[in-house]
C-alpha cells in the first residue's frame, strides 16, 4: 500500500494495487501487535545510527548495510508521518510517544498502539490514504500468477480474478512486489493465510535473485496451549515488554541462564537465542505437556496485568486463560523471513523495472531480525520502491507484448477447465508445511535438508497431475494450485540455501555444524531459477 501511495506521490498517473484477497486486510502488517522500532528520541536520547548498530549486531554479520541504514534512517520520518495519518501512537503521561525497550535494542525505541492494535491502526491509515488517491486503482481478489518479462525487463503481469475466474493481463512499466514473507510454509506459524511465499516465486521465475533464504525467524514464544482464538499467537511478546514474565520449563524451573541469557534486567533475550533455548529444553525432555515451555505472570498482582492490557484480559478470559492464576504454554513458531528478493538501494532487483518492498526483500536483517524492524521495513522500503518505480515509468513506453503472456494465460484457462488427478493441491500444501517444519525448522541437518529437498522437487513434479475442480467463480482448488506452485519453489529455495550454509548463524541452526564459521560472515547464499531448475551459490 505504501509503495502505491509513494508512486502516486512521485507523479505516477496510473498505479494498480493488486491483492489476492482484500486490500490491506490480509498479510503481516495488520497482524503486528505492538512494537515499531524508530529512533524518535522520545524516551531519551537516540539516533538512527545507534538503531543501525543494533540492527547490524542482531544480523550476525550478514546485513546488507546499505539497506539496513536506509531502514533505520528513514524509520522516524515514516513513523511521524503515520501520526499525521492518524495512527494514535500510545503516549506517556507527559505527552511524549511511549517507547519501550525490546530485546536487542540498546535503548527504549519501540512505539506502539494500545492495546495490541499497532498493525490494525497502521493498515487502516494506509487504506484511508490509498482511498484518497485517484491515481491508485485497487483490485482485490486478483491473484497474480506470473510476471511478464520482455527483453529481460519487467513488462507486466498475468493474473486470475478469483471471484469470476477470468484471466487478467496487466501491462506495466514498473512492478513492485510487496507480497510479504513465507511463514505459512511451516506447519507452526503466526502467518496470515497469504504469507505463502508467492512473491519470492514470482521474482525467481521472472529472473530475479533471492538472497539469505535460509534465514527464517522463528518467534520463540508463540502461543501453544490452551487453545486461543481471536488473538494472534505472538501476543506474548507485548506482555513480556510490559510485564516481564517468567519462562519456566516443564518442571517449573527457570532455564535461560543455562543458555547464557540473564533476564534480571527484564526481557532482553534475542529471538534466535530464545528459540534455541526453548527447543533444546523440549528436546531434552524438559518441555511442557504440549511440547513447549511455560510462560508465567502468576507472580504479578492481578491489577497490574489488567492495567497493562485492559480489554485483552477479557478476551483471554473468553479462552479460559487467567494470567494471574495460570501459566500458558509457548513454543517457537515461524514468524518472519529475513531472506527475500535481492535488491539494490533503490529496491530494484536484477530484472530492470522489477522492485520489491517490505518482507519480500532480503538483506536488511541479515541472519536475525531485530524486534520492531518489520513495520519500518514495510513503510520505508515501500516508500523507496514506489518512488523509484514511478521514476522509471515516467516517459517510458510500454514494453508489453501479448505473446510474452500467452503461456501464462493458456495455463490459467486450462486449469480453470479442471484437471483430473487423485491428489488435491491442498493435501500437498499440508504435507509441505509438515515437511518444512520437520526438516527445515528451528534445527536442521544435512540429511533432513536433503530429504526435504528431494520431496519438494518430487512434489513440484506432481503439479501437472493434481486434481483441480472445474469452475470459474471463486474456485478454491484453482487458488490452491497456484499457492502450491509458488510455495514449493520458495520452500525449495529455503531448503537449498540451508543445506548450502554449513554453519550455524542467527536463525539458521545446523545440528551438524553447531558453530558459526567466521569465514562465512558477510558471505550470502543467492538463489536463482532457470528453465524450472533452482540453483544456489555463495556470493560476497
Amino acid at each position: 500500500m505504501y509503495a502505491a501511495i509513494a508512486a502516486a506521490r512521485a507523479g505516477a498517473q496510473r498505479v494498480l494495487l493488486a491483492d489476492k484477497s482484500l486490500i490491506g486486510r490480509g498479510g503481516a502488517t495488520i497482524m503486528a501487535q505492538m512494537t515499531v522500532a524508530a529512533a524518535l528520541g522520545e524516551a531519551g536520547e537516540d539516533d538512527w545510527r545507534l538503531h543501525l548498530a543494533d540492527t547490524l549486531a542482531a544480523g550476525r554479520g550478514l546485513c546488507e548495510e546499505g539497506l539496513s541504514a536506509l531502514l533505520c534512517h528513514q524509520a522516524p520520518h515514516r513513523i511521524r508521518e503515520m501520526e499525521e495519518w492518524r495512527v494514535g501512537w500510545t503516549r506517556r503521561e507527559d505527552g511524549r510517544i511511549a517507547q519501550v525497550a525490546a530485546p536487542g535494542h540498546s535503548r527504549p525505541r519501540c512505539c506502539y498502539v494500545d492495546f495490541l492494535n499497532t498493525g490494525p491502526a497502521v493498515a487502516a491509515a494506509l487504506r484511508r490514504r490509498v482511498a484518497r488517491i485517484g491515481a491508485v486503482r485497487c483490485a482485490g481478489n486478483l491473484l497474480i500468477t506470473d510476471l511478464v518479462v520482455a527483453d529481460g525487463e519487467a513488462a507486466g503481469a498475468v493474473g486470475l480474478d478469483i471471484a469470476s475466474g477470468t484471466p487478467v493481463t496487466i501491462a506495466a512499466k514498473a512492478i513492485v512486489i510487496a507480497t510479504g514473507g513465507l511463514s505459512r510454509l511451516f506447519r507452526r506459524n503466526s502467518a496470515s493465510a497469504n504469507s505463502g511465499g508467492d512473491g519470492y516465486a514470482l521474482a525467481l521465475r521472472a529472473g530475479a535473485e533471492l538472497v539469505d533464504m535460509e534465514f527464517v525467524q522463528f518467534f520463540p514464544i508463540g502461543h501453544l496451549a490452551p487453545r486461543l482464538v481471536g488473538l494472534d499467537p505472538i501476543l506474548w511478546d507485548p506482555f513480556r515488554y510490559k510485564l516481564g514474565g517468567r519462562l519456566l520449563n516443564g518442571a517449573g524451573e527457570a532455564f535461560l541462564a543455562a543458555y547464557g541469557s540473564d533476564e534480571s534486567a527484564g526481557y532482553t533475550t534475542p529471538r534466535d537465542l530464545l528459540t534455541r533455548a526453548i527447543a533444546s529444553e523440549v528436546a531434552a525432555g524438559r518441555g511442557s505437556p504440549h511440547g513447549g515451555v511455560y510462560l508465567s505472570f502468576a507472580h504479578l498482582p492481578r491489577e497490574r496485568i489488567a492495567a497493562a492490557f485492559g480489554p485483552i484480559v477479557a478476551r483471554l478470559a473468553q479462552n479460559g486463560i487467567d494470567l494471574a492464576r495460570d501459566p500458558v504454554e509457548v513454543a517457537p513458531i515461524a514468524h518472519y523471513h529475513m531472506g527475500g528478493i535481492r535488491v539494490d538501494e533503490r529496491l530494484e532487483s536484477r530484472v530492470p523495472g522489477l522492485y520489491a518492498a517490505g518482507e519480500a526483500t532480503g538483506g536488511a536483517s541479515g541472519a536475525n531480525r531485530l524486534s520492531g524492524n518489520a513495520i519500518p521495513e514495510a513503510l520505508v522500503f515501500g516508500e523507496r520502491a514506489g518512488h523509484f518505480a514511478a521514476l522509471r515509468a515516467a516517459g517510458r513506453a510500454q514494453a508489453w507484448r501479448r505473446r510474452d503472456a500467452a503461456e501464462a494465460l493458456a495455463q490459467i484457462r486450462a486449469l480453470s477447465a479442471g484437471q483430473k488427478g487423485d491428489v488435491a493441491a491442498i493435501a500437498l500444501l499440508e504435507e509441505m508445511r509438515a515437511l518444512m517444519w520437520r526438516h527445515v525448522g528451528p534445527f536442521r541437518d544435512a540429511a533432513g535438508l536433503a530429504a526435504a529437498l528431494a520431496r519438494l522437487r518430487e512434489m513440484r513434479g506432481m503439479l501437472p497431475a493434481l486434481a483441480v475442480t472445474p469452475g470459474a467463480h471463486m474456485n478454491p482448488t484453482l487458488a490452491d494450485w497456484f499457492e502450491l506452485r509458488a510455495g514449493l519453489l520458495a520452500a525449495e529455495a529455503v531448503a537449498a540455501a540451508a543445506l548450502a550454509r554449513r554453519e550455524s548463524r542467527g536463525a539458521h541452526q545446523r545440528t551438524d555444524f553447531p558453530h558459526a564459521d567466521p569465514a562465512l560472515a558477510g558471505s550470502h547464499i543467492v538463489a536463482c531459477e532457470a528453465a524450472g531448475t533452482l540453483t544456489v551459490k555463495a556470493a560476497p
Partner: protein
Amino acid sequence: MTRPLLARLRVRRGTADDPAPRYDEFVVPFEEGATVLDALLWIRAHRDPSLAIRYSCLNANVCKECLIAIDGRTAYACTARLSAGAAMTLEPLPGKAQLRDLVTDTLPPRERLG
C-alpha cells in the same frame, strides 16, 4: 477407550448460478476449543477441497474476512466455537451476492475490476 468426539456441520453449497440451493453434511473431529474455521479447513484438507470459504488471518480475528451465517446468526468463523452437539448450519452472509458456497461478494466497490 472413549470414542473420539465428533461435530456435524450442514454447509450451504453452490454458486449464484445454481437453480436450487443444496446443503452438504460433514462430520468432523471435535477438539475442545476448536472453531468453525478449523472445521472448515479440516473439511477442505480431508473431505472436499472444493469447499469455498474466505479467510486470511486464521484465528487472530483481525482481517474480518470470514464473516458467515452460523445457525442464522452473523458470526466470524474464526472465533465461533464448534459444538459437539446438534449439527450447526453454515450459510453465506444474507443480503450479499453468493459467489460460491460460503463466500459472498464482500469486495469494496473501489476494489472491483471491470
